[in-house]
């Protein structure tokens, strides 16, 4: 990555990493095409359009057709990266994602731009906080929720390499570049960013840096909180979840409703294979008017919110033990 180096206070829009990566992939593989819904600007496809105008397929404002066209392009030998605002891409075209992509095992890459509550004040119609629950229920659908520019680029590359349907969340909400001692991305492979034995925090996307900050703050009080970045929601790294359960308590954190997302996925493994107390941090439902940062803070999706949940859960863990 050119701009997104860790180690300073700079914040990044992951769409830049997505756009740069797509252009780089397209340069070496002429099967790569971009499909969008009047979203050249919001998907940051201007550079792609300039470099490969004949490989940009802009269907206009028509998400059902966009996803169907993506499946058709895959049938025709292309590797389509279908991108649009995550709320419309997933919600409007859900049946196309199910039948044309997942059920058909079509080699389509669905890239949800500005997921979560990035559109803040535009309200619940524009929030994409149900997408993971919807898509996670489909067999065959790889789901990646990267945490920063580096991981976004890795997720896009991994999606291109995989033969099959993939959904990648591409965050617009500014995030720092996460410091990694041994950066290595793998579909189905979680990443431990802080070791810890008292409790585990499993997060993905924009919550990962908050989880790290929470863990660092807790460490100052002698609480050792592991941080696991579960960017691959499907397939899940079940071993990492079971290992997290060995700490005796798990907090999950995600920019999604509390039903059916990362928390639900982790809970399915924990409840059936290694029950321990859990807290699932996320949004309760349709949200009030407010900016993205305000919504995140208001609903506890912050370092402070995670820290509070960890302290509460450690008390519960002690009571139950």
């Amino acid at each position: 990555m050119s701009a997104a180096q860790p180690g300073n206070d700079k914040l990044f829009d992951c769409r830049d990493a997505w756009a740069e990566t797509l252009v780089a992939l397209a340069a070496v593989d002429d099967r790569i095409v971009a499909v969008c819904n009047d979203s050249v600007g919001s998907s940051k496809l201007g550079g792609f359009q300039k470099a490969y105008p004949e490989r940009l397929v802009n269907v206009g404002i028509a998400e059902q057709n966009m996803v169907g066209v993506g499946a058709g392009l895959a049938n025709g030998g292309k590797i389509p990266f279908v991108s649009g605002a995550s709320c419309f891409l997933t919600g409007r075209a859900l049946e196309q994602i199910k039948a044309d992509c997942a059920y058909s095992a079509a080699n389509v890459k669905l890239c949800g731009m500005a997921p979560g509550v990035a559109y803040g004040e535009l309200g619940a119609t524009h929030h994409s906080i149900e997408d993971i629950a919807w898509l996670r229920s489909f067999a065959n659908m790889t789901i990646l929720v990267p945490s920063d520019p580096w991981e976004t680029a890795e997720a896009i590359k991994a999606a291109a390499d995989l033969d099959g349907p993939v959904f990648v969340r591409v965050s617009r909400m500014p995030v720092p570049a996460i410091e990694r001692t041994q950066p290595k991305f793998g579909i189905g492979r979680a990443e431990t960013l802080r070791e810890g034995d008292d409790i585990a925090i499993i997060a993905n996307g924009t919550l990962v840096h908050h989880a790290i900050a929470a863990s660092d703050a807790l460490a100052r009080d002698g609480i050792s909180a592991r941080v696991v970045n579960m960017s691959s929601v499907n397939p899940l790294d079940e071993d990492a979840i079971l290992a997290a359960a060995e700490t005796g308590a798990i907090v999950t954190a995600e920019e999604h409703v509390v039903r059916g997302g990362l928390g639900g996925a982790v809970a399915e493994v924990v409840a059936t294979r290694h029950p321990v107390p859990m807290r699932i941090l996320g949004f309760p439902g349709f949200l009030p008017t407010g900016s993205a940062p305000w919504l995140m803070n208001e609903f506890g999706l912050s370092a402070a919110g995670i820290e509070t949940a960890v302290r509460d859960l450690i008390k519960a863990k002690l009571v139950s033990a």
Partner: protein
Amino acid sequence: MPVEAGLPEERAAKIKQRAGRIRRKALEMIVAAGQGHPGGDMSSSDILAALYFDIMRYDPQNPGDPTRDRFVMSKGHCTGALYAVLAAAGYFPEAELATYLKPGSLLNGHPNRTYLPGVETNTGPLGHGLPVAVGIAVAGQIDRAKFRVFALTGDGELQEGSMWEAAMFAGHRGLDNLVAIIDRNGLQQGARTEDTNALEPLADKWRAFGWDVVEIDGHDHAQLLEALAPRVERSGKPLAVIARTVKGQGVSFMMNQAGWHHGVPNAEQYALAMEELEREYGA
């Protein structure tokens, strides 16, 4: 398989015979399975026969051949006719047809590309096939490939908005490698299309979306072959073939009866149907 040569009337006669066999096979499958969609199977058999036994270029031994012509069954419920034609085309053994709808069969109520060769995309929910066909045609357009893409849609299916999203985009892109064939039998599951949510003037609608349109008798084999033939001059427009058909065509008691959208003939009806089909289309 090459595009067929020969005198037009000989080719049409051959298609007619193949279409009769598809009808009989589809009914046999439906009776054995105890369920199915005979009305649509009968109305689309001639179209399928024309495509698979004359018009399209494909190699059933190499179903993933990138140069193949593609067929997308947008009206995914008409699997009796579709599976009968795919088996006859050589994609899988005819014996497989006896498993239609049985537990574990490759022949599901709607086609599945992940385990049945010859199926391009999984359809079933209406309004999905045409967008996928448009995507295939766009891939061909980008690559300047020679293959053609055919989508068979129901007429009731044109009440789905996604079909018109796809139609608009195909017109915009000038996809003259794409042919949409509308099985215009006038009936949807419960009633006439025109009494439910009217489609007419249908040809005008396609033209307004940037398509060339031909209207034919969808049971006239010579007309089908002419309408579906490779287009000598590239018009820069996709082609809509409005094939006027009769739901249940070829079986007297099913013809034009919405009630035969689903249904299974009893033993007496089945015998009568087979007799009528053999008389009309030959053995």
